[in-house]
Each structure stands twice: as C-alpha cells, then as structure tokens.
C-alpha cells in the first residue's frame, strides 16, 4: 500500500463530509456470500473535483459506485454523499446525485426530449423548471437540434451525450459516471471529455468517474484512485501517481533471443529502477534517465553480439503506475475480463 493512501482519523473525515468533501467513503465493504467484491475502501472526493476510479473490469469500481448511488446495500462501513449517509438517508442522496450507468439505457422509441422529460418527472421537477432545465442540458450536450429525434436514430456518441443530459436534468450537485466512454470511437470519446470538463466548470459539479482507460483518467481527473481486487491500491493526482513510480522514463526493449540473464543485466544498468519482464523477450525498463539507459542498453547488446528487435522510450504513464502498484498491466486484465465476467450479485464466486 502506497504512502499516498493516508487514512484520515474518523472525526476529521466527518468534518470533511459536512464541509468540503462531496463524497466520503469510510472502510466500505461489499460481500456477496463469501466473495468480497470491495474490501474496506476509504477515500474522499472534494467538492468541485473530478475524481477517477481506475481499474480493470471486475476490480470493484462499479460495485463501489453502486453502493454510493444507493443501488446496492453496503455490507459494512459508511459512505456519505453530499453529507448524507447512503444507508440511513438514501432518498436525500438520490435527490443530490445524477447517475450515468455503464450501459446506454435511454429509451430508443422515445424522443430525446421525452427521455429527459420523464426523468425530470421522476425527480419531481416542476413543469416550468423542467422545460428550462431540458433546454439548458440539451444546449450543454449540444443536442438541441435533435430534441425531437427518436433516440434510436442517434449515433453512439450522441446517445452517450443524451445519457449525460439525462443525469443532469434535475440539476444534481454530484455526478456519478460509470465508464462514460466505453464503446465510443476515439473522436466521440474526446468530445465527451471536453463536454465533461465544460460541465464541471459551468455547473460547479463534483464528478466521480469510473474508467479503465488510462488516457481518460489522465486527461479528465483531478485525482485518481487505483482499485484492484476490491482494494484501493493508490490515490493521488495523475502527476503525484506518476511521480510515485520509481523512474521517470520507460524503455521498452525486445531482444531477438530469450535469455534468463537479460533481467539481471538490465537491472545493472545505471539509472534503472525496475525491470518488468513481458512476453517473448520483451522488457519494460523503468529508469531515471531514458536517453542514457537507451545508449548503454544498445552498447551492452552490441558488446554481447545480440540484436534488438525493437526499442522505444516513453515517459511514465498511468499504465506504469498501474503495473507498479498491482504487478500487472491493465490491458491484460481487460482482455481476461472479456472471458471472465464479474460475479452476479448474490452469486457465489
């Protein structure tokens, strides 16, 4: 567990919850039978910030968000949203939050405006206010000219924007987005990021976003919590998290021949802080000086009469942060997750 995960005393958290913290989660646990999906997670989200929960599928991100949005009961621990306990005052929490689920759930047979209107009614927004809110959110997500269109005629990106508008139609203070750009093409994804940034500024929203996209977390979030196997393994700003990983550059190298000695030879190079073995003779070398390590690595290979198949130098990314804290790559976990779905609520693992 990293030093970035400093636990605050209980009374201090309570003060935060009533004051600047929009969300305060304290040692929260979710158990399905004997399977523990969330294992005592604690964190706070400050008012007005975009907070990211980053982790692979099945890490417990959605379970966490579902507990905070009153969708599933909390096994133990406490979560305060807008100062209200999600267990004791669920309705007060529901009034304060907007939630965008992972799936696109707007009714395809209904128009954009009808979808928004029905959700505004579910929040008992008065008629005059409802019409004003609908016009505003449509403007905010750039769907005004599509307000009369049936949802099934919209593209994936537009439907995601409609979902976001739906979550905002009652003017919530805190906005939960569960993997808001999953399934979108890169252009639509960037458009959604820009829109969320604009919304944060224009509406003073607090946002909690779950994602398994490193770039999304890096570009969008003020702070990020890395979740793995139901635990919080790291928490901080993207910059803090990257700085917490030894080495500021990553050299990725592939040798044409597999040799068990490579690991120790690479580790011995000056400036190298960590060496991670990948498949088929590929190594990720974390170093404090990328250019110097690259030169020495090439010289070492030439001296041994070995050939390099590929070589690249990158700055430390959140991917490296994830590897550092969890011991594996997020990308691999996503591939596995395609074949291994998270357990259903109530099911035995």
């Amino acid at each position, binding site marked *: 567990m990293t030093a970035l995960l400093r636990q605050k005393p209980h009374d201090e958290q309570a003060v935060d919850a009533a004051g600047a913290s929009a969300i305060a989660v304290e040692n929260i646990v979710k158990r399905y039978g004997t399977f523990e999906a969330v294992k005592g997670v604690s964190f706070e989200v400050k008012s007005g910030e975009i907070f990211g929960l980053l982790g692979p599928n099945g890490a417990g991100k959605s379970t966490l968000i579902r507990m905070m949005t009153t969708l599933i009961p909390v096994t133990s621990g406490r979560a305060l949203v807008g100062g209200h306990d999600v267990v004791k005052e669920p309705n007060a929490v*529901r009034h304060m939050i907007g*939630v965008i689920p992972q*799936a696109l*759930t707007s009714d395809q047979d*209904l128009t954009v405006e009808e979808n928004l209107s029905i959700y505004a009614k579910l929040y008992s927004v008065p008629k005059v206010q409802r019409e004003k809110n609908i016009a505003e959110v449509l403007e905010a997500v750039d769907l005004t000219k599509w307000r009369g269109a049936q949802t099934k005629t919209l593209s994936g990106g537009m439907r995601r924007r409609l979902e976001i508008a739906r979550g905002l139609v009652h003017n919530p203070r805190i906005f939960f987005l569960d993997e808001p750009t999953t399934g979108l093409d890169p252009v639509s994804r960037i458009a959604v990021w820009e829109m969320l940034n604009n919304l944060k500024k224009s509406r003073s929203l607090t946002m909690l976003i779950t994602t398994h996209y490193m770039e999304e977390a890096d570009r969008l979030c003020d702070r990020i919590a890395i979740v793995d196997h139901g635990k919080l393994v790291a928490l901080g700003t993207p910059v803090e998290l990257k700085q917490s990983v030894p080495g500021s550059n990553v050299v990725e190298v592939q040798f044409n021949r597999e040799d068990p000695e490579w690991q120790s030879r690479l580790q011995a190079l000056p400036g190298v802080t960590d060496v991670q073995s990948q498949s088929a003779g590929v190594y990720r070398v974390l170093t404090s000086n990328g250019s110097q390590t690259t030169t020495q690595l090439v010289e070492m290979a030439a001296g041994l009469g070995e050939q390099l198949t590929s070589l690249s130098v990158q700055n430390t990314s959140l991917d490296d942060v994830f590897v550092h804290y969890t011991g594996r790559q997020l990308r691999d976990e996503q591939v596995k997750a395609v074949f291994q779905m998270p357990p259903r*609520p109530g099911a035995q693992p």
Partner: protein
Amino acid sequence: MNRFLAIVEREMRKFFRSPVLMIMSMMLPIVQLVILGHALGGHVKGARVAVVDEDLGPQAVRVHEALTAVAVNVATFTTVPYADEQQAREDVRTGKVDAAIIIPAQYSHRVYAKNAPRIGLVVDNTDQIVSGAIESEMQSLVDALNQPDVPKRVFTDIGLRIVEIYPFVEYMKYLLAGSIALAMYISVMIGGGMLYIDDKARGVHEGYLVTPISKLELVMGLNAAGAIKAVLSGICLTVIGSMMAGLGTIFHPDAVLNLLLLILGTSIAFNGMMFLMMVRVDDPLVPRAMFGVLNTLLFFPSGAISPISQFPKWLQKIAFVDPFTYAIHGFKSILLKDGGFVSIQSDLLFLFAFGIGTLLIATPLFKRTL
C-alpha cells in the same frame, strides 16, 4: 403521483411507438378463433363409407334407402358400394374410406324371422370424432329401421324434449371468450413480463432506482401501465372477435359496461399474477421459456376450449384457482347469454381479489436495490 405517472407515461409512449406488441398480442387469439372456431365443434360432413351388401334382399334395400337419405340430407357420409367385405375392411384400415357397413347374407331373412338381424359397422376408431359421428348417425338409422310398421296400441316410447334457452351457439362464438382472455394474457406476458425483464436486463430499472421514486410508486406505475395495455388488447379483441363471430352483444350499452368491468378485472388479475411471477426474475430467457408452459397450464383448464366438468378432479382444482376460468366464465355470461351484472359478480370478485392479492404479495418482494 408525478413519479407514478412518469412511469405510466414512459410505458405507454413506448407501447404506442411499437404497435407490434399490440398486433402480436392479438395475432394468436384471432388466428386461434378463426382456425379452431371453424375446425372444432362443427358437424362431420362427407365421410366416405363403404357399403357391402351380401344380402341383396328387400330389407337390405330399406337399409340402402336409409343410407341414401343420410347422404342427401345431413350429409354426414356418402356411401361407396363394395362387393368384398375383406376389401372394405382393408380400405378402412388404410384410410381410403372412413367406415364400412356390412349387410350380411340372410339379413332380410333374419328380419322377417325376427332372428336377431345385425348390420355390421367397421370404424377407424383412431379418429374419435369421425367414427363417433358415423356411429351416432348409424345408431339413429338403426333406431328408425326398428320402428314398427303398425303403431303400438299403448305408447311406451317416452321422449325427452330439450328446450334450449339460447339460440344455437357456434363453436367460434363459444371460443371468443377464451380468445379475449388469451389476447389479454399475451399482452401482459409480453408487455408486463418480457419487456419488464428486458428493461431490467438493459439497466433501465437501474436508471429508475437512482431517482427518488418510492418502491410503491414504481410497482404501481409498472402495473398500471401493464393493466392499461391489457385493457386495450381486451377491448380490441372483444370488438374484432364479436364482429368475426357475429355477436351483437357489444352494441348493448349494459353489456358494454359489464364487458369493460370484466376486461378491467381480468387485466388486474393477469397483471398481478405476472408481476408476482417476474418480480425476482433477472434472466430475459425465463419469461420466454415460461410462456408456453403457462399458456397451457392456465388457458386449457379454464373452460375456454371445452367444459370444466369434463376434466378430472386434479385439473378442476387448477381451474378453480386459475383467473382465466373466471374471466372466460364472465365473458361467456355476457357475450353469449347477455346475463347482466348478476351473472358476473362472483367472477369480478375473484378477478379483483386475485389481482390485488397477488400485487400485495409481490410488492414486498420487489427489490428497491439491484
């Protein structure tokens, strides 16, 4: 109230945007009404009966005359002359003819001698309906042949005079009540069962659950919408089916009111039952898999196709708790007999009590969380 209405509004907008639900919910009952209405309950006509006359005497001629009278008048069967009894039996077995009548040698002699004359009838009893009709017709024919030429001095044949208080009811009319109930059941099954679970699986309910809507508002909203859809299906099928079956009851204002009450009661009963069954189901395959089983279990024992009194005791017990039974009894009472409110009171009582009862059980089972 606003939230409850929002759920109803959403469901109804979806319903009217996809009329396929309404069409599909009425398709099966209408097809059933037309096909079964014409296929069942009618008289057998034009069966082919082989006649083997091994007697060729004057009494055999009387039999031929009687058979010709049947063929010309009620037309239950037509006769085909055969010379060989074995061939006739073989043709019954292979289905070339439906039955064979054997007038044995010495038949006329035995009639005159009062020596137990017999006419043979060979039937294909794998088809109970055709063989039953031929047997019945032949029994009437034999009874007629047995009448004495000179009337008895003391009249001993006591007859039973049947008084039918309603005009002859064609089977299609008899079936209409079941078809209306079936249309409403399918509407509830698709609109209240399958779409409800599909919405759950798609995450639509997740969207509801993060709003401040209460459990009661949500349950009542979903059920009210389901009941409205079933009422619309019921009204449509009552009108279309009555016109197809040639029933004019729907033009009597009192009958219309009673029918509307029945449709409403049936909708609430079916919807409550469906909601109770689906309240904890998450898998969209479950309602689809249950559809056929439930249809058979509820529709057939209800008296829609044949009277409940024909059923064994265990099946009658199912009919006793089956809302279809009361819906169909009520619809028949109004559509076929114009029996008035008195004739449907107990049906309405059961349907409303059943609907409210199932909803009262289902509501606490409904989870406000995922």
